[in-house]
Structure formats: C-alpha cells, structure tokens
C-alpha cells in the first residue's frame, strides 16, 4: 500500500478495488436492507390499493393527494416536529454541559470514562420497560408526586407529569440525551487544551472561551448529535403514544395504524413524504458542518 498522506494524487485502480473490498460488507447490508426497501416503498406509494389489503399495479397519485390534502397530516407533522424540536433543545442543553463537564472538569481520564459508562448502563434495560416505569415515577400516586406532597410543596398531585406532552418530551430526552453526549464528548476531547490556556493567558474570560473556542470546535459533535436526536424522534411511533396516553400521535404512529389495516400504498406515500422531510432536515444540518471531513480525517 503506498502510503502518502497526500490526497491530490490520482488514485490507482488497484487502490479502488481494495477499498471496495473493504467496504463490501457495509454495502452488502445497505443495499438489500436500505436501498431496496426504500425503493419498494417508493414504488408502492404510486400504486393502488385494493379492498382486500393487497396492492394493484396501477399507477396513481391518489395516495399522495390524500396525504397532502388531509388536515390530519399537517396536524401530525406539527405535533411531531414540535416534539422533535423540544427534545432537541432539552437534550442539547443537558448533553452539551454533561459532555463539557466530563471533558474539561474531570481531571482523571479513567474517571471520565467510568462516569461515561455509568451513563450508558441504563440502556441495557429494555426500552419499552423503561417507558412503563415512568408510571410509578410520574403518575398521580407516583414517587415524584408523593415526595412533593409529603414535603408540602403541593397539595394536589400534578396531573401534567404523566400522559401529557411534558411526559413525552421527558421520555424522549431521557432516551436520547446520550446520543448527544457521545458525539459532543468526542468532539470536545479533540480540542487541544493548550488553546484554552493560550486564550486565558491572553485575558479571555471563561465565557469568551466558551463562545469563541469550545462551541465552534464542538460544532461537528453538536451537528451529529442533532442528526441522531431529530431523526429518531421523527421516526418514533410508540413513545409518543404511550407517554401521551394516546392523546398525541406522530406521523409514524399514524403510519403504523395504516399498516395495521393493511393500507400499504397510502402508508407508503406517507412514509415517502416523511423520509423527504427528514432528509431535508438532515441535509440542512449537514450544510453547517463538513461531517465527512471531521470524521474521516
């Protein structure tokens, strides 16, 4: 392998073949389990439904028409995007500071890794069970309410803690903050501590350092974390249903219901629209950072 770090050299054909060999497992998974399914969904969205839950091979735009004209669609998108943004704000707000704490305030590296692992352990309990556990915690007779009433802060249990928008966002943030912490942690630990020292020597306050050095240099981590958080919330269908007590739904949960009654083509159309929305969101984020350059240096 010729090993110049210079990338302006034209790649010999032999190098290309080697690279494709190495990337083949990834491609062998992505094509049948991502590319093709998406294409299948795309195709299905243009086909007709028959009354028995089957698909008839007639081209039609009716599915899309019903998606775009349905008031429900807009309502769902509004609701889902609302949750996505709120979750993003919360997870970023908490995740950024946790990552900052672990990188810059914890002196012992082993301790930092230990604390980091500590944050990942809860994810070894099943997602679904973790959601159910909110009931004894946030419910009317739950721990939080009991504690608050026992200390006399309130005298009626707080209803909004569970089966509400609040609960949905809390559940999302609980699940997804770790997805923010990891990339931001990674980006921050790349920052040369000597730049901070130099800034301090030059008289910068801690706020200055945060604004002018730490935040810009963690931009890529923030972007990556945002991509994770937003795409997971946009694609979720059960957290929102459970935590809102059925009060709210998301785009995908409506999709799920269509599937349940075997309405594949309309569901497919809705899925394609959702995919486009998510892709646009992600593309917008990717424009702010060069993720490829950051990661594959």
């Amino acid at each position, binding site marked *: 392998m010729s090993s110049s770090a210079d990338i302006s050299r034209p790649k010999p054909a032999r190098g290309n073949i080697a690279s494709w060999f190495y990337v083949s497992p990834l491609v062998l998974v992505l094509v049948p*389990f991502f590319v093709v399914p998406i294409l299948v969904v795309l195709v299905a969205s243009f086909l007709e439904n028959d009354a028995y839950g089957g698909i008839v091979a007639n081209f039609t735009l009716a599915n899309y028409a019903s998606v775009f004209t349905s008031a429900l669609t807009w309502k769902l998108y509004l609701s889902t995007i609302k949750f996505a943004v709120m979750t993003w704000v919360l997870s970023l707000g908490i995740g950024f500071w946790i990552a900052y*704490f672990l990188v810059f305030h914890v002196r012992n590296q082993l301790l930092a890794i230990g604390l980091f692992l500590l944050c990942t352990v*809860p994810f070894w309990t099943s997602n679904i069970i973790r959601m*159910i*556990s909110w009931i004894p915690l946030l419910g009317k007779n739950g721990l939080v309410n*009991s504690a608050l009433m026992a200390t006399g802060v309130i005298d009626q249990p707080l209803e909004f803690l569970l089966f509400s928008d609040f609960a949905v966002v809390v559940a999302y943030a609980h699940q997804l903050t770790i997805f923010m912490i990891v990339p931001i942690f990674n980006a921050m630990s790349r920052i040369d501590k000597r730049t901070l020292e130099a800034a*301090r020597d030059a008289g910068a306050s801690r706020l200055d350092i945060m604004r002018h050095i730490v935040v810009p240099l963690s931009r890529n981590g923030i972007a990556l974390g945002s991509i994770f958080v937003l795409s997971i919330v946009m*694609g979720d269908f059960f957290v929102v249903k459970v935590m809102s007590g059925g009060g709210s739904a998301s785009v*995908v949960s409506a999709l799920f219901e269509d599937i349940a009654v075997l309405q594949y083509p309309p569901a*497919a159309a809705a899925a394609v629209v959702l995919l486009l929305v998510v892709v646009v969101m992600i593309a917008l984020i990717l424009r702010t950072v060069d993720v490829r350059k950051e990661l594959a240096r």
Partner: protein
Amino acid sequence: MNATQASIADLAKRTRRAAKYRDENRRPWTFWVLVALFAAYVLALYGPMLCIYVLSFQDLRGGLVFPMKGLSLHWFVDLFTQVRTGDVKGGFERSIILAILVTVLTVVGSFMAGLAFRRRFRGDGIVFYLMIGSLVAPGLVLGIGIGLLFQYFGLTASWYTSALGAQLSWTLPFGVLVMFAVMSRFDRAWEEAARDLGASRWQIIRMIVIPILAPGIVAVALFGFTLSYDEFSRTLQTSGPLNTLPLEIWSMTLNVTSPSLYALGTVTTLASFLIIGVCLGAIAVMQKRRSNQSGSQQ
C-alpha cells in the same frame, strides 16, 4: 494615579486573575454547578430503572405503582410459571443470539469499512450518504419495505434473516461512525514504520492496527450489542412469526397489567448485565495477562 501606576495596577490585577486560574487545586463555582447537573442527570437516568427493580419485589397484593405493600418474590415466580400467550423465554434466547450475531457482524463490517474510508476511493461519497440515510430513516418505514420485499419474493421473514439485516442496517452505520472517530486518532506513521520494517499488509493489521484500535473495537461491540438487544421498530415488521424479546415485551404490555412485567424488566437487565460484564471481564483478564508477561507477544 499616573500612567505608570495605572499600568502596574492593571498588571497586578491581571496577574492575580491569572494566578487564580493557574492554581490547579481551586475549582471555580461553575464546577459545582456542573457536578450537580451531572448528578441530577444520572439520578434521572437511573430513576425509572430503580423503580422497576424495586417494584418487581412488590407484594402479592400490590399494584403497578407505589406504595410497596410488602416485599415478595411472587411476581418473579408468576413470570416464570404463569402460562400466558407469548414466549418470553424463547424471545429472550432469540434476542441474545441475534444480538451476538449482530455484534460480531457489526464489528467486522465496521472495522473493514473504517479501513476503506481512510483514503478516498471512487464512490466513497455515495456509500457515505447511503450510510447516513440508513441511520436516519425511520425504522418502521424500513421495516415495511423489507417486509414487503420478502413478501414479494415469497421469502418468509424471520428473526435470523430479515430482522438480522434490518438491525444491521442500523448498527453498521453506527459502528462505522465510531470507527471513523477512533481511526482518525490513529497515526499513519505507525503503519508506515511497520511496512518499512518488513511487515506484510496482514501482519500490519494483525499486529499493529487491531491492538491499537482495540478500545474502539470494544466500543463498537458494546454499541452493537446494546442497539440490537433493544431494537424495536425495525425488528417489528421483519422478525416474522417468532418474536424477539422487545417484541414480546411489547405485546405483554398491551395485555398484562401486573408487576410481573417489572420482574421481567429486572430479569432481562440482569441478563444483559451478566453478558456484558462477562465479556468486559474477559477482556480485562486478557489485558492483564498480556501486560503481566514482560515483553509478551505471541
């Protein structure tokens, strides 16, 4: 105060401020705020879990919420003995096997892909964006697509084929991203030096690249296992007639309203703790043994 005195005073002030920052043992007040935040976060993370663990010891007469009416193992027994629709034990086995398969394939696949992406190659942009696409695509949508695909070809979906593929489409991009981060810290000079000293391509990978990247590979394995074990939305449509554990639990939550569900949660957590603990322990033992033998390499 004349100009000289003013500049001396200013210098003294800045020196004092600098001295305060350079004092290694003093912690600014923000440190304590962040510690409090971290503690609160960890508490919030563990809170729901702890509720489950505690409540699984709920007394026979107790319900799904606090207060605890007493302590008992009743619900554990109920979990294992009660005949019910659904196959928890089978689901559990399948989940573990699937998770192990996914972990191994993810480690190998993302390691190789990480190696590939270290230099530019024709089509690397396409592969990269496909990967990102697979990561952000809503799991349910992909599940539908894969389900329809299998239906069209007359193949039966099952947990070890279609679900495996669906989970890999989620864990592989993740693993590759982790590999990117890990490999970018890898100094090419080590490889060049090894080549210079006569090592073949395979020897370089075996003796230099893998050992140095080992922590990252372990991280990918951990990610892969966790993501697979808990995977729900992509697996929902693709696991075929037999359920994985999350799917079993899902159907249970729709039907069962007793603390035996919590008992299930406690048991499954213990199981994953055990497995991960054993693996990490094995790795730690291997590391220790390797560093104990002075100058040991096979």
